[in-house]
């Protein structure tokens, strides 16, 4: 899918183009929200809100950044706002995520090991500060580059690198037992 062409169609109010956008980015947007919030229902609510906002304001999108970066920026801002506003904490994340992993497990012994490893990983992620967690989620789970992260979060490259280093170091200490 060519983002420039899709953006032109979206600006023209093409309903099919919006549906294509939702289909293409639903898992990534939902994934960021789930890793940040830890609750599937809340993550779906945020992801749906992201697409509704995109649908409402895509006609005014200037195209200075990539469409995907714009989507990640909206998602990150909504998640951070939600985390900051309601004094909520990253709770029940492991349980929600375990359910998802159990469904995808094909090999029972391997699935059990994998589930325990990922549960420990998400617990460690949940213990990170929000501003560090979003950086490591965007980089290591969603695969964004330093530049895209800088553009998505509005941070300097040095800040991104520093936060990412601190987040990884902290995770390495927490996940020491799982490392080979």
């Amino acid at each position, binding site marked *: 899918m060519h983002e420039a062409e899709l953006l032109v169609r979206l600006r023209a109010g093409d309903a099919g183009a919006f549906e294509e956008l939702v289909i293409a980015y639903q898992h990534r947007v939902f994934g960021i929200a789930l890793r940040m919030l830890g609750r599937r229902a809340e993550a779906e609510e945020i992801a749906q809100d992201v697409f509704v906002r995109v649908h409402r304001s895509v006609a005014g999108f200037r195209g200075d950044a990539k469409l995907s970066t714009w989507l990640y920026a909206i998602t990150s801002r909504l998640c951070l706002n939600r985390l900051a506003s309601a004094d909520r904490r990253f709770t029940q994340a492991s349980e929600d995520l375990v359910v998802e992993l159990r469904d995808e497990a094909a090999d029972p012994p391997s699935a059990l090991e994998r589930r325990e490893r990922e549960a420990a990983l998400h617990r460690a992620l949940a213990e990170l500060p929000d501003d560090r967690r979003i950086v490591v989620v965007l980089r290591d*789970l969603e695969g964004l580059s330093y530049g895209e992260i800088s553009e998505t979060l509005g941070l300097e490259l040095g800040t991104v690198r520093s936060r990412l280093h601190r987040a990884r170091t902290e995770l390495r200490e927490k996940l020491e037992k799982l490392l080979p």
Partner: protein
Amino acid sequence: MTCHDARELLSALLDDALSADERQRLLEHLATCSDCARERDRLAATVTLLRSVTPARAPAGFVDRVLAATRPAPWYRRWLRAALLPWPVKVPIEAAAIVLLGIGVTYLYQRTPELRDAARMPSPVEHRAPKPSEPDETEKVQDSAPLQANVDSLRSKDSAARSNEQNAVVGSQKTEAFGRGRAFDADSRKPDDFKDRERDTLARSDVEASRDKFKRDVGAPERREGGPAAQPAPATAPPASSTLSTLPPAPATPPPVAVTPPVAASAPSAARGSVSEPQAKEQAARNLTAPQDRASPQATTPDTHAQRAPLPQAPAAGAPAQKTAKALDARVESRVAKMRRAPDVIGRLSVANRSEAEHALLELVARHTGTLVDRRVDGDSPVLTFDVPRASYVAFARDLAGLGRFTADREPGASGDVVEIVLTLE
């Protein structure tokens, strides 16, 4: 490069985000520092672990829900939302409703006691024994002001005056009730015997008040009597009939001595017909013939009561009559009716012996079927007020001349059944 500087760059080295110079110097340090090299390996394993996490997938139906959420709502739903939901519309309406509700509740709360009082006012009137000649209760509660304003026309219409005089009774009692406030309401709930007693007391105090008013209006020389305007009746109060028999004709119209209203002088009150009712006549006869036992009240009351000496020929057998509510109401009505009109004749009788002349005068009044209304003392001169039937007035005046030199300041009019005479014995 120190180990601290090297470890700050390890994360960027894994992402290949270092410049060529930084990368070269870091690699040289890692080649010589086993601790930093081991730290790099542990950090790389952590990143590998993070990137091995199963990607999250949006729940089934997510796309449909997003598309449904972005689809425009039907026109009627948008119209309803626009009409009912916007806060700028709802908030002012709700605030106005709350304010109006508060104002309404406050208004009703403030108005309720007055309405309750207004509803209670007719109760003392309704409690009275019904009289056949009384008009409807709804007429009684009418204000008595029209009577004051239309005295002339009312005097020429007997029936109308009769009705309005009864209104005056109600008006007087109503005014009295207002003056007494809630105590009056409380009294109205007492048992009947208490009510009778209270009504008697009320009538007596009303009489005293009206007498004082009469003194003020006429400029009466009884100022030395002093005393409270509405002196309460003593415990050994005389019978109501005796007390009422001394009522002065306190006029509501201008004072007859100072200003002589032409209408009042030429047209005697038609309302005076109520005085000649059989009941009133019987009362008058009883006043003339029944003894008045006033010794004890006069002994216990100062000035005013002491000035009202008992009538010379009044018998002493005035035991307290049984006061029924009906009779008392009739007396009160009669008294109030008298209060509201001026006397027809005001005259002086010059005699040699006042005591003997007073005896003779009372006999003369009784002979002409008249009624003694009041007796008081003006200086040394007794002032008697009595009613004489109009048919007997000419003969009465002729006989009166036989007692002494009679001079009349006012002459009676042509209408009315009774002539009210205020006579001063000189």
